[in-house]
């Protein structure tokens, strides 16, 4: 079972009191302040890089046109066969290799938004990812990412050094910006001197150097850094082995989510986190119920399901949201794959989610309904979905800052969170 914040404070953080390097949110907690502790709600953002084929992921099996346009790669209508769509609501079905998602759907923890995405019509991966991560489609000059801006309200000192975490070597565009975000590719390497047993005194020396530095910029970050390192060390996330039933598949994505679960269970004050999974650009031999896409979807859905099981009670306050830069052509191409398209599917998983429902208006797949005659049309702007997460889950009401230039008022939310 996940350790509580209070237990951690008794065991680990109290020892920090008296040194200069105590995060303010921890001191408040230690001294029994009644102020609410931030970091209770968590938003996990997942990016499928390469433009996932939403039409084969959440299959509109009630659409005749779907089968006409994808003669060899379509997912068969739900049937008793294993190699058919898993029916969700009589019209949509999951790709069969995503059976790990079915329990989440049945329990009402999984919501789906179809025909969602970025309204910009670029079909360049690189521009489209950039637009989604900056949160400003069509605008290249935005320097920071939407998820960072979502954390910029209020005093950064109110947050843990682990307030914003990316499970990657470099900080992703989504988390770039003023709010101090931490990139960790491997929680065992997050420290000074690596696995060297003599690293502790060296780390202490560095810490003292930065703590005493008059350099305002470096002093501050140095302090945050060593707070984070110490917190991580005393929380010892390596102790948190996956809960029974949390079977992470092998691969980088499963690894990222397993480590993220460790950070969450160690109660390090993570509020937003980011992880990505690549390899969705299937122009050739995409496969149908089996093949390249199927394999990737298995890894994707099993990792998320394992993460969800691993979280246990923490899931109550955790929301995951997934996105991909754009969808793929409605028709299959001449090489058994699909080309760059427009709208796509987004998943939202979590405790406060009103799941078991496919949200968004379905635009249809008849020729006249397609975007530019070739792609699934867009009926939900991704910022509408993310805006709701930011507003209701993270409690940041300043959507004009998080998604500048986008009319994003609560009455336009899809009401995915309840």
């Amino acid at each position, binding site marked *: 079972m996940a350790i509580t914040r209070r237990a951690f404070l008794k065991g680990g953080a109290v020892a920090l009191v008296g040194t200069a390097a105590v995060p303010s949110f921890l001191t408040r907690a230690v001294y029994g302040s009644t102020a609410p502790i931030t970091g209770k709600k968590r938003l996990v953002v997942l990016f499928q890089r390469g433009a996932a084929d939403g039409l084969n992921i959440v299959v509109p099996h009630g659409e005749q046109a779907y089968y006409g346009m994808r003669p060899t790669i379509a997912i068969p209508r739900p049937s008793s066969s294993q190699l058919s769509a898993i029916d969700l609501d009589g019209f949509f079905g999951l790709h069969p290799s995503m059976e790990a998602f079915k329990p989440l759907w049945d329990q009402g923890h999984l919501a789906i938004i179809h025909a969602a995405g970025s309204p910009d019509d670029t079909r360049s991966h690189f521009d489209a990812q950039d637009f989604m991560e900056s949160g400003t489609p069509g605008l*290249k000059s935005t320097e920071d990412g939407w998820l960072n801006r979502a954390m910029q309200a209020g005093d950064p000192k109110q947050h843990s050094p682990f307030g914003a975490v990316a499970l990657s070597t470099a900080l992703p565009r989504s988390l770039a910006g003023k709010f101090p975000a931490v990139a960790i590719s491997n929680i065992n390497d997050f420290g000074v001197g690596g696995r060297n047993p*003599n690293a502790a*005194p060296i780390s202490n020396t*560095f810490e003292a150097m930065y703590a005493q530095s*008059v350099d305002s910029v470096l002093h501050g970050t140095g302090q945050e850094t060593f707070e984070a390192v110490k917190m991580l060390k005393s929380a010892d996330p390596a102790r948190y082995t996956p809960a029974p039933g949390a079977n992470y598949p092998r691969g980088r994505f499963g690894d990222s989510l397993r480590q993220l679960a460790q950070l969450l269970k160690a109660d390090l004050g993570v509020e937003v986190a980011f992880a990505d999974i690549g390899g969705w650009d299937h122009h050739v031999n995409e496969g149908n119920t089996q093949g390249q896409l199927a394999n990737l979807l298995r890894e994707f859905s099993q990792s998320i399901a394992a993460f969800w099981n691993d979280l246990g009670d923490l899931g109550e306050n955790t929301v995951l949201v997934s996105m991909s830069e754009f969808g793929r052509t409605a028709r299959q191409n001449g090489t058994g794959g699909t080309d760059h398209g427009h709208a796509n599917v987004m998943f939202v998983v979590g405790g406060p989610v009103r799941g078991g429902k496919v949200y968004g208006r379905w635009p249809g797949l008849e020729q006249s309904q397609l975007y530019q005659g070739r792609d699934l049309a867009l009926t939900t702007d991704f910022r509408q979905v993310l805006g709701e997460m930011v507003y209701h889950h993270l409690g940041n009401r300043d959507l004009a800052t998080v998604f500048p230039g986008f009319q994003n008022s609560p009455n336009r939310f899809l009401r995915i969170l309840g």
Partner: protein
Amino acid sequence: MRSNQRLWSWLLLAMVLLSALGLVAEKKKKSKDRANAAAMQMDEQKRAIHVLNRFTFGPRQGDIQRVESIGIDKWFEQQLYPEKINDSALDARLAPLRTLKMKTDELVRNFPPPQVIKAVENGRASIPRDSQEKAIYQAALDRQRQKQEAKQEAAEAQNNPDANANDSGKPRRNGRELEDRMYASLNADSLMSEPPDQRFKDLMKMPPDDMRAVARSLNQQERDRMFEGLTPQQKETLQALVNPQSVVQGELTQAKLLRAIYSERQLDEVMTDFWMNHFNVFINKGPDRYMLTSYERDVIRPHALGKFKDLLVATAKSPAMLFYLDNWQSIGPNSDQARFGGQRPGRGRLRRGPFGMIVYDPPKPRQEQTAQQKAKRPSGLNENYAREVMELHTLGVDGGYTQKDVTELAKVLTGWSIEKPQQGGEFKFDERRHEPGKKKVLGKEFKEGGEGEGVKALDMLAHHPATAHFISKKLAMRFVSDDPPESLVQRMAKTFRDKDGDIREVLRTMYDSPEFWAPEAYRAKVKTPLEFVVSAVRASGADVANPQPLVNQLQKLGMPLYGMQPPTGYSMRADAWVNSAALLNRMNFGLALAGGKLPGIQWNPTVDQNQPPGDAAGALANFETALLDGDVSKQTHATILNQLNDPQAAMRNNVPAAQGTNFRLIAGLLLGSPEFQRR
């Protein structure tokens, strides 16, 4: 009349003389002012450190004295004319990197990407005759074939799930892999003991499969031994047998670091880096990985200290930029290409009609493309470059242009394209894609004029006052502070406008400004990861035989070389680089460099011979001077000394007393200190 004319010429001469005198006086006054201001602001040594921190990638040991003895002003003037500075030591280090001198199409041919290999497979291209090149192609073909087989196998397994169920194929394959690995390391051992020529011959004789297995089995040191004594071309060939594209990218990134570390033309390097970042091109976008070598060498570097307009036009016409920002695909909506696709206009025909009359048969009219045909391939404007060139390269985001200007400029630039980008082709103007008619950008009308329209529009942008300000500010951000004083920017911008965008002159104005020498500018900039890594190596005096570990470290520090995906380039401001993971990585880099943990980079930190052994404080002071010119705070000094004097710590660090002070530790701590993060 005549006397009048003479009078005029006398007057003119007098005026010229007077103004020349004035200029001299002005110049004298300027340098006197500068000296006065400097005297009030920084002392001579600080001035030397300051120019080295700003116009180089960091001072090496002895650089401060060198600059002082040349004279600071004179040193700066020398740096403004890099072509006059001897750089033969660097040239010798770059000589083995053969790809640096190759043209883009040569790179594609010599180090073929998968597309070229596919073309060979389909008979659309042929294999070169040269034996080494041939081997590279054959290895790539073999790799391709294996990939396809694997795919086919997977597909078969898919169609036949029952066969998959008992997994009969799997254990066998795993067993084979193990065996392969064993043979590979055996092979590698015996190869490494052979003389270089024999080794190369044997390697070339190996089946591609075995070769790859051997390559995979080697660690960095073993790889170095395997390559020992081979010619540069032999090394490249071996590497290309495993991965041809990595040769091009590898040599480009390694060269960048070697130049930054070893070039005597430091300002030229700094400016080349500045413009590469300003006119950013991402190396991992398709054929751009082959185009960047030429982009840096032929487009950016020649203009790094020249006229801005030349630089702008050169980038606009470079295949690297045309591909990166998609302009090569942009098509005028009313151009021939958009309306008629591939159909060419017919010529018409003259024939003899009835009664011997000559009749003209007009050509068959071309068919307008249907919407569906148009959707199949690019058939319209791409505004990507038109937007970025105004927003990021010239006017700046607040430079006063509108969406309409973006669209119109995109039309102006239609037809600016690339001849076969996948094969390393050059710029071409494609009339068939060019939007006909008048266009209006920023209130100025451009008459139909083909390629010339674009040149005129770029000329207008280069000379726009907003551009002068935007570029000046960015330079001041690089060389002075994150938020440079507006007075300084204005002065630089005026020079930019008055001197036709002469970058050298703009830098001179900045150098001559009191703001540049203000005490608050001293060590005001937080180093970017590139500046941090290179300055550490330069300060240490380490010998870099193989820069690859440094390339990898930059990736870890979040600044992969040529690896910035968005066109904004890397930020030069502190807030982008000061974050937890980054700082930890910097400390770890300092420890690794000083600890001799980076293979191929030799540094054995020692102190003066005169230093009495065991004098920790003396040794520390020594390193503080060597690495940080003595600019170390009392706190940092005391903290490090504390660690050195703590016998427990010494014991934990496993330093026997007899060995005395741990120099590597001192150096590593200093490189990771807050002080070393600034320049």
